[in-house]
């Protein structure tokens, strides 16, 4: 049966070489993502260095518990993604599908919490350009909050793409369009993207919510 065989494409001489080429392509892509988010992180750190008071007052307006809940949701989704990769390698089709869907559900839960958080931020007047006037006078606070919206918004877009990818993949695995373990590399590479998006949040959360928190 095709789905139990490991698929080897031209021009690779063996499966290990093909696997390395797949992983290499993914890591180069993740490197470009790291560069993009790196610039945003750098901007946030610079705002913290040159406007410490404004950034601290802005940080105190953000809810560290909602952010923490979101961190826990994403870390759990990384675990279910790892389980999906293991299941795909072992050819367990239904478990792979289930674990991928669990990751997507946790990702959606993250986006719902984030959406609620944005709604609360809107109520506080933090959202740029809409709603009440910005509540903090101190220089740098509004700049920092704008950075918060840009970086969390860009991360949310990445996560939404990840959710779509993982749901589509779950369907493809279930329908044997992506047979496992033959093409488990597809699940592995989707998993890499998912973990990477999780890693960006691992840094965004402390830089935005925890650093210099006044209490």
């Amino acid at each position, binding site marked *: 049966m095709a789905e139990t065989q490991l698929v080897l494409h031209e021009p690779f001489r063996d499966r290990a070489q093909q696997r*390395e080429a797949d*992983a*290499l392509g993914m*890591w*180069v892509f*993740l*490197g470009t993502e*790291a*560069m993009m988010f*790196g*610039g945003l992180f*750098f901007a946030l*750190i*610079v705002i*913290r*260095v*040159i406007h410490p008071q404004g950034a601290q007052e802005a940080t105190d307006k953000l809810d*560290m518990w909602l952010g*923490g809940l979101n*961190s*826990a949701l994403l*870390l*759990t989704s*990384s*675990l279910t*993604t*790892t*389980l999906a990769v*293991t*299941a795909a390698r*072992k050819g*367990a089709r239904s*478990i792979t599908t289930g*674990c991928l869907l669990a990751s997507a559900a946790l990702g959606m839960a993250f986006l719902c919490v984030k959406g609620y958080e944005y709604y609360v931020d809107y109520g506080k007047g933090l959202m740029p350009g809409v709603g009440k006037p910005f509540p903090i006078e101190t220089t740098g606070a509004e700049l920092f909050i704008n950075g918060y919206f840009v970086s969390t918004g860009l991360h949310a877009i990445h996560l939404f793409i990840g959710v779509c990818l993982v749901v589509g993949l779950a369907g493809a695995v279930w329908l044997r369009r992506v047979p496992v373990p033959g093409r488990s590399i597809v699940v592995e590479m989707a*998993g*890499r993207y998912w*973990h*990477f998006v*999780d*890693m960006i949040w*691992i*840094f965004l*959360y*402390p*830089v935005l*919510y*925890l*650093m*210099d*928190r006044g*209490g």
Partner: protein
Amino acid sequence: MAKVIRTGDLIVFAVLIGLLALNMAQARWLDLGVVSRVVTIALAAGQALVLLWYFLELRSATLLIRLVAAAGFFWLAVLFGLGLNDWLTR
């Protein structure tokens, strides 16, 4: 399901959650003064390294893949190092 759940993955997950809890606790209840920022970033970096090594499977990756992954972080280090030495030393 049992054959898919490996103890190692659960330990890695527990470490990741533990480091998150630690970071939240120190930010909320500890006043570490000047080293506070360093501690916050160090705990996050610890989480990221665990994630990279185990869940992103750099542990079992070839040297080439590890080099490519490290190159991304090397250039980020250049960005932060050269960029911040201006603001931090003025």
